[in-house]
């Protein structure tokens, strides 16, 4: 995908002086302004971004850029701490909270010269699968406004029009996915606890990488589930994801859950021969509710590998269907603990109650958290009660081991990479999505992505084809622990085969100065 690659297009252009970092930054900022209706950004850090761009320009002039990422505009999900910039987690609890420090991953990006455009929208405290439950409102999927979607749109009634029928981005990193998808930035950080990077990546037609747990530092990422959270990477193509990974991975003394092994950044080879590859197709991922369209695409992808000479085998991950239940218990339990820090005393919202500490805490939390967050805290506390601890929490931890062991067995049998769908269907219209409550939706939508978090494995969504409604559908590859290079190499090969179409957005066309070239590409389906 040369048109969308950091390396061959923008990076080269910057190095050769065909475009300057400040021009690039200004174009992105202008595009952010004209795509405001997407509601992808909570905070746009215009001044600091331009300053960073100017500093980058100086470095290029001196012939001393910091690397490929120097001058590249990026966006960061609003649950990462960013020094001097408001970090809200899309919650009233943290409105007005100005981080005193940068999350490690943010610092690393800045150290590589990246230009931080702003903080992206999400579900409140990353709890949700639609990016619809934050206090700043829902994020709209840029594909709602694409030529591809509009052409296929068939109103179900007179009153229905495209405007009210916009579709969701998926979540919880919907803002980041929308930002990358609409070209307002070249890469974005998300987070992934149950699928929160891969799910919106699938719905927005971008690459979403969930790295192995322990590879990338979580220091500064406001925690949801300490044993599953990872920073996620969203880009327009697999090569870019490898570049981002290279700058972010590695041991962080400030995060004791990062492994100590040396991490060597890598470039992805262009795989020509897949005959030595063994692709596993887990039958349990043919989950109830999987759309026939996506099933067909998944099978077609399997055939693609088979016809290219790879070994494609059906495998079994028998405990797959308990992954969501297990997640539900472990997540709410860890959330109950992690959310306890929000009491109004040191940061964030504080209630005016003065009669006692406890009542101030209670009022602060009543005022600061939405229903979803409060619901999870209460459920979590229930599962952690003395009388329930063994029955629920410890039981879930045992089931977790069974789920993780399922993967170990499959990989031990010779499978290199697993191929599965990422979502059950293409993006739902917002009006339809909100008919069901958050927990139900999350339980439905996370079913295909959650197990990778349970087992800590790396997984990536690769945009594959457009659905009948003209919306993106992606497929997921799950790899072995810490084998990101192999995973991404396979993903890159697949990406090349499918030639996923470029989104055709009026807004982008208007700002297009050749930097966002569109290419007519053959589509997969």
């Amino acid at each position: 995908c040369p048109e969308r690659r950091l390396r061959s297009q923008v990076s080269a252009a910057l190095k050769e002086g065909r475009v300057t970092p400040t021009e690039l930054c200004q174009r992105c900022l202008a595009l952010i302004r004209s795509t405001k209706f997407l509601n992808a950004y909570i905070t746009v850090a215009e001044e600091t971004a331009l300053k960073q761009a100017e500093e980058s320009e100086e470095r290029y002039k001196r012939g001393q850029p910091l690397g490929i990422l120097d001058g590249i505009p990026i966006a960061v999900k609003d649950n990462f701490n960013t020094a001097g910039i408001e970090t809200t987690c899309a919650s009233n609890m943290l409105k007005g909270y100005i981080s005193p420090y940068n999350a490690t991953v943010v610092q690393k990006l800045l150290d590589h010269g990246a230009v931080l455009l702003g903080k992206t929208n999400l579900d409140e405290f990353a709890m949700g699968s639609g990016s619809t439950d934050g206090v700043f409102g829902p994020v709209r999927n840029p594909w709602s406004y694409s030529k591809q979607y509009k052409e296929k749109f068939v109103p179900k009634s007179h009153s229905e029009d495209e405007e009210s029928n916009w579709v969701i981005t998926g979540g919880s990193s919907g803002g980041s996915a929308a930002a990358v998808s609409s070209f307002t930035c070249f890469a974005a950080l998300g987070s992934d606890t149950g699928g929160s990077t891969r799910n919106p990546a699938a719905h927005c037609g971008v690459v979403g990488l969930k790295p192995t747990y322990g590879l990338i530092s979580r220091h500064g990422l406001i925690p949801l589930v300490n044993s599953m959270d990872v920073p996620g990477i969203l880009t327009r193509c697999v090569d870019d994801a490898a570049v981002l990974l290279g700058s972010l991975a590695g041991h962080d003394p400030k995060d004791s859950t990062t492994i100590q092994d040396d991490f060597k950044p890598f470039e992805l080879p262009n795989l020509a021969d897949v005959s030595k590859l063994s692709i596993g197709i887990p039958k349990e991922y043919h989950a109830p509710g999987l759309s026939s369209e996506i099933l067909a695409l998944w099978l077609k992808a399997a055939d693609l590998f088979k016809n290219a000479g790879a070994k494609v085998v059906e495998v079994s991950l028998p405990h797959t269907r308990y992954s969501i239940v297990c997640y539900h218990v472990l997540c709410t339990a860890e959330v109950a603990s992690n959310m306890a820090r929000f009491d109004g005393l040191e940061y964030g919202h504080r209630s005016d109650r003065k009669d006692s500490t406890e009542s101030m805490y209670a009022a602060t939390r009543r005022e600061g958290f939405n229903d979803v967050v409060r619901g999870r805290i209460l459920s979590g506390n229930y599962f952690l009660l003395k009388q329930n601890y063994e029955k629920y929490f410890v039981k879930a931890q045992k089931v977790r081991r069974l789920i993780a062991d399922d993967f170990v067995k499959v990989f031990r049998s010779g499978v290199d990479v697993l191929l599965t769908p990422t979502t059950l269907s293409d993006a739902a219209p917002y009006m339809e999505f909100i008919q069901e409550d958050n927990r139900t939706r999350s339980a439905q939508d996370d079913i295909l992505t959650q197990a990778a978090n349970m087992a800590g494995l790396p997984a990536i969504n690769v945009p594959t084809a457009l659905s009948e409604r003209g919306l993106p559908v992606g497929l997921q590859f799950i790899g072995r622990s810490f084998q990101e290079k192999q995973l991404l190499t396979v993903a890159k090969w697949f990406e090349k085969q499918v030639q996923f179409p470029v989104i055709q957005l009026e807004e982008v066309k208007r700002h297009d100065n050749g930097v966002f070239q569109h290419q007519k590409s053959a589509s997969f389906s």
Partner: protein
Amino acid sequence: QKVSVEVLDHLEQLALVDFRDSEGVERLQKAIQFADQLHEVNTEGVEPMDSVLEDRWCLYLREDDVTEGNCTKELLENAREKVEEYFVAPPGNIPLPKLEERETFLQGS
């Protein structure tokens, strides 16, 4: 099997978060029902898993050297109520009012 008002009350006190309305209580009931599916799984002889990195023992002790700090000013910036270098809290050791006296939805139950 419904959760008793005593347990609901206990949860509100532990979590310092309120159920708000019948929907909140319903939400908990559904969550428990959902979680009960776990009991279908046979976990005889299976050890609970704390961390996926259990084989790569990450947790280590380092030397007790001070490597950062002196950021009092930054840390106090985000607090609403402070006096000199103290965070100010309302009087402590006062338990939350009992169920009958609290403003909670559970009162009616």
